[in-house]
């Protein structure tokens, strides 16, 4: 069983604190929604978990080990914004590269392509694809490695309805995949359809909650009422 652990972790951008003595331990597989206002530090958390940023104090461990390049490579797949894709290369080129790096075969590529319905455009240059198509390719690249932890950063942003449905189905399927999946999103309505287990970025801390009521109502409670108070 994989464990993600933050202990008394603090991180700041140029004296602007993002996390202060934040602690969290995740061991249970499933989909977790990472929710917070814009600019609150959701993507920063993903960067910290991947070792792309280092906390000023405190520790982050993945299965008890610091997130070195090797540990992250074997433990985490990070589905970033589609902007990381090379416009002149096709989705297939990207998938072949990631597959080779992670020792995955053509069958794995085919399975992931089928999951995200990429067949119609995977051979086209990424630069010619729509936003939703690019996003699906980016997510496919994160699914391919089959790592114990999957991070998806705003996977539902700016998508057409078809793409939203495909990704929602994917996320529902990931609930029972045995993996820890963190999904950051502003689309609470969609997140609700996938999970009720949330990580709320409140101030400089992380609050893990199981929300039995509407997620939007809880969001309002945490962020809007706090603002007015």
């Amino acid at each position, binding site marked *: 069983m994989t464990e993600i652990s933050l202990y008394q972790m603090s991180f700041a951008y140029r004296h602007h604190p993002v996390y202060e003595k934040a602690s969290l331990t995740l061991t249970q597989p499933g989909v977790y929604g990472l929710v917070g206002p814009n600019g609150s530090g959701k993507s920063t958390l993903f960067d910290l978990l991947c070792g*792309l940023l280092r906390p000023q104090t405190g520790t982050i461990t993945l299965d008890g080990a610091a997130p070195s390049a090797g540990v992250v490579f074997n433990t985490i797949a990070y589905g970033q914004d589609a*902007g*990381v894709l090379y416009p002149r290369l096709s989705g297939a080129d990207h998938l072949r590269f990631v597959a080779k790096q*992670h020792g995955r075969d053509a069958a794995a590529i085919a399975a992931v392509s089928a999951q995200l319905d990429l067949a119609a455009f995977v051979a086209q240059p990424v630069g010619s694809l729509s936003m939703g198509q690019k996003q699906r390719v980016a997510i496919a690249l994160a699914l391919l490695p089959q790592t114990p932890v999957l991070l998806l950063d705003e996977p539902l942003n700016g998508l057409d309805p078809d793409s939203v449905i495909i990704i929602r189905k994917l996320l529902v399927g990931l609930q029972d995949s045995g993996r820890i999946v963190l999904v950051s999103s502003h689309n609470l309505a969609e997140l609700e359809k996938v999970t009720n287990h949330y990580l709320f970025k409140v101030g400089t801390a992380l609050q893990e909650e199981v929300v039995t009521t509407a997620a939007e109502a809880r969001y309002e409670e945490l962020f809007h009422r706090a603002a007015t108070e």
Partner: protein
Amino acid sequence: MVGLEWRKWVRGRRLWACLLILVALMIGCLEMERRQQAAATDWQVRQVDKRLAQAQRMAKSADPTARRLGKQDLANQKQIRRRIATGDAAGVLAATWRSFQGGTKGDKLPAVAPIADTMVTMLHAGEAEAMRAQLVYLRQHNVAPILPLAIPTNPDTATTNNLDAYDQQFFAHTRQYHPDAWTQVWQWASVGGLLVALAVLNLFLGDALAEERHGRVDHVRWLRLQNVSWRRLVLTKFAFHFVASLALVAAAFGLFLIYAAVRSGLGDLRYPVQTWVAGKAVTPHWAWSTARDDANFFLPLQIQIAPLARYLGRYAGLVVAVLAANSALAMLVNRFLPSRIAGLMIGVVAPLLFFVLPTSKFSPWTYLNGDWVASNYLAHVLGTSATVWPYVLGGIIAVAALALLGALVPVKGRRVA
């Protein structure tokens, strides 16, 4: 990583356009040279025509001596005119060699047809000796000269010869011409062709590393998560940049060779080239006002004739070293200036500074003069008698290594905005 990079280079870069430009420049240079050679030949024929007219007038003179000399001169000038107009290189060489066969002080002075006889007496003694050495070499190795026959003058010795150093017409019509394939490479070395090639290559390849971090995009972070470290990324990019540069230059040259072989022939790799080596002081063969013992103007160096193959071999070594340094410097510039435009502009402008910066032992561009390095004239510029080619190559390779080390300093990478 190699596969991904290969696809990026093949699909993302207009390498065909780069190749086309290089080939066009090479072929253009050849055609321009052939045209200038034809113009020089025409000019020489016109000079002979003037003398023919003069000789004809003398041949009709009332004075019997003048008439005899005029008829002799008329026959000579007609022969010279026929040789030049028909490209009879062997005939021109034979005639010129006969004149240079003298050689003890006080003997008849040498002449280079059809330039006025007294032209040779205007030469610095060292240049006359270089001329003689060139002719000896051509005869001994049975190499056909390139017409018009070159007079190896040097701007350095302009203060001691009687030639008007600013007489562009003279230099234009007595300089070495390069009308075939191998001699064209010689010309490229002389006119800074390597620097032009670098500018063209960098126009297409100069942002090889910067493209990973340009603007809002940062592929570096994504690649790091795919187990591609910054070091591996830089070394892969460097390898592709260097190999692509070599391949483009080699392919362009290959296409040029095919064109030149059909157009004017490949040329003779034994052709005599002036080089500078440390040696004994030159003893002038003739005595005239400028043929003094300061024939040893370049002391402790002297002009030595060497085969073109040796010269081109050294130049080829320089080209490979400079291409490696160019690739490493491109990585360094891109590392610290992650802007594609900056990488491209610096890559294009920097080599072209060669054409505007003054010569100085403190200027790196001085050491990129292909002709000076291959002929060792650079030793004279630096005030040494050593053969500098190995040191220049070593220095360039050291610069490449340092630049690559600098580029390997890791970057943190930015998140996509």
